[in-house]
């Protein structure tokens, strides 16, 4: 038996951290170029085509379901929210219409950890814990949407507040633009890429469609690799911070969840990391809960970055709406003991039923994330 080149107990070969960090910067730049291209691609199609296409999402519930389904399909709320920022920045979708889509993205992103929890289905106790940890995120996000969406439809307070916050950072009114160093840095590359597409495709509409397709591809691929590389880059820090909150509950967990998610640019990664920890009994469900909520806030950074590249006040407003919605959601539910654990209690009940009937877990996941949003879109548009 030949001796392996290195002991199996050794760390696997890794890309040196400085190189990985440079790679992340390059990927982040490409991601922002993608957002800029998406915005100009949508503008290039022209309102004759886009207005009828997006008119349907002026129904808030339809917008909500579009947000859920789009996020489920791409398995990333960051991709969905960056795309929504691009749509809003281009003026095709209004801020008001985009708010329910953003809320939908929040719900849709929880499908990933729910799917991860299903991998424990063969062991009842582990599955009960894992499914509870996953679905408490679903219940929390749905609960917050139930509270805030009607309020937003009636008063528009969410996007109005976000608009006010955006005004603190940039000059200009809704519908206007602003200059940012990020926008300046990515515009040149975006134009270069669009020039390349123009040299291959002839008609303006075709150029715009190809630009949109390339942009969405770039956003998706770059975010995937940013997440992957950041996860490797900060793995030790994630472990250190999660170890520190294993036996703790409360605000500290929210902050840790937020930091980890900002670092890896994906709430799904953060919440999916929690599932095996909860299933193995290392982390209590109630200690995982605040970390999950923190992930909701952390994930909004991607849309804010995208808005800085787009350079549109509307884009920045919808990005801040995303942040505000998640912060408000936590403030509405978490500080009040009677409200705080409702999502956990509901998740525990569902998990207990799911343990008795695994097909219920599958039906819930498929129904919640695919059937309901799909039927909702069909009926409402």
């Amino acid at each position, binding site marked *: *038996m030949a*001796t*392996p080149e*290195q*002991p*199996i*107990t*050794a*760390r*696997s070969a*890794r890309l040196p951290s400085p190189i990985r960090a440079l790679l992340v910067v390059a990927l982040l730049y490409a991601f922002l170029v993608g957002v800029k291209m998406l915005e100009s691609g949508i503008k290039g199609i022209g309102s004759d085509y886009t207005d009828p296409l997006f008119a349907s999402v002026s129904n808030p519930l339809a917008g909500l379901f579009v947000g859920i389904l789009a996020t489920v399909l791409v398995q990333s709320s960051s991709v969905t929210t960056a795309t929504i920022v691009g749509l809003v920045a281009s003026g095709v979708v209004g801020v008001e219409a985009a708010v329910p889509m953003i809320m939908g993205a929040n719900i849709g992103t929880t499908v990933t950890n729910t799917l991860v929890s299903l991998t424990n289905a063969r062991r009842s106790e582990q599955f009960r814990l894992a499914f509870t940890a996953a679905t408490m995120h679903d219940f929390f996000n749905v609960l917050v949407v139930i509270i805030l969406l009607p309020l937003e439809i009636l008063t528009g307070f969410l996007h109005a507040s976000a608009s006010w916050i955006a005004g603190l950072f940039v000059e200009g009114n809704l519908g206007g633009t602003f200059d940012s160093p990020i926008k300046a840095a990515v515009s040149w590359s975006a134009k270069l890429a669009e020039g390349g597409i123009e040299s291959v495709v002839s008609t303006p509409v075709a150029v715009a469609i190809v630009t949109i397709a390339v942009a969405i591809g770039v956003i998706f691929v770059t975010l995937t690799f940013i997440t992957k590389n950041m*996860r*490797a880059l900060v*793995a*030790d*820090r*994630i*472990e*250190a*911070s*999660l*170890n*520190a*909150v*294993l036996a*703790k509950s409360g605000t*500290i967990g929210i*902050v*840790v969840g937020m*930091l*980890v998610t900002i*670092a890896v640019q994906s709430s799904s990664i953060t919440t999916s*990391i*929690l*599932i*095996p*920890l909860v299933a*193995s009994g*290392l982390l209590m469900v109630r200690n995982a809960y605040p970390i999950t909520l923190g992930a909701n806030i952390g994930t909004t950074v991607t849309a804010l970055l995208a808005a800085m590249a787009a350079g549109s006040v509307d884009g920045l407003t919808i990005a801040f709406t995303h942040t505000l919605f998640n912060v408000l959601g936590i403030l509405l539910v978490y500080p009040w003991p009677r409200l705080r654990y409702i999502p956990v209690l509901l998740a525990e009940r569902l998990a207990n039923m799911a343990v008795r009937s695994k097909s219920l877990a599958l039906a819930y996941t498929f129904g919640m994330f695919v059937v309901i949003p799909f039927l909702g879109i069909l009926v409402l548009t």
Partner: protein
Amino acid sequence: MVMAFFRGRGESTLDEVKGTLVSMLADGRTVFDAATDAVFGGGKSKQTKQTVRSTDQEINTAQQRVRRSLMMHSAVTTVDLPAVLAYMSIVKDAERIGDYAKNMYDLAKYGANFELAEDHDELLSYRDAVGQLIDDAAATFASQDQTQAQKLIDKADRFLTDYDQKIKAAFRSEGTADQAVARALYYRYLKRITAHIMNMLTAIVMPIERLDYYDEAPEDR
């Protein structure tokens, strides 16, 4: 706690786990020495019992800490899966050394005493050899030196054959039953400790599917 995220941990989880295993071996040596001292004339005493118990408890706690760290590490990153599986297996070996040393102390509790035995020097030489083997294994595990690990495995392998012969001899001996039982168990425990050390060392020189296979007879490997 939040600062833990910004500070990081200074060393990787796997390095930390390796360090814990090395300290588990050092603790194993402490229990082993205390227990065998009892068999070689020290007899049972409150102090020895306390040393054996508390050190074994530290070993058990360290094992749980290692498992927690490995679970956390595998949840965050999957690239080190072979190392995580290997450590999950060998941390058990490190823990078992303490258990067998504790069993050795039980021999003294039941009345075994080799202090004035005819074969005292021979019994003692194996105790010293195993003690040295634990120390050498700890150093080799810390350095992850594959050549040294292989040398130690070969050396320990020869001990296993010796122990089997000693156990057979105890069965056939014409001495009293308590003498035979004490020797059979003594060599049995030395054999198990040696085998667990070998299991740990295989992680340095063998692919993962061959972990633990050095305590079988050569023809069965």
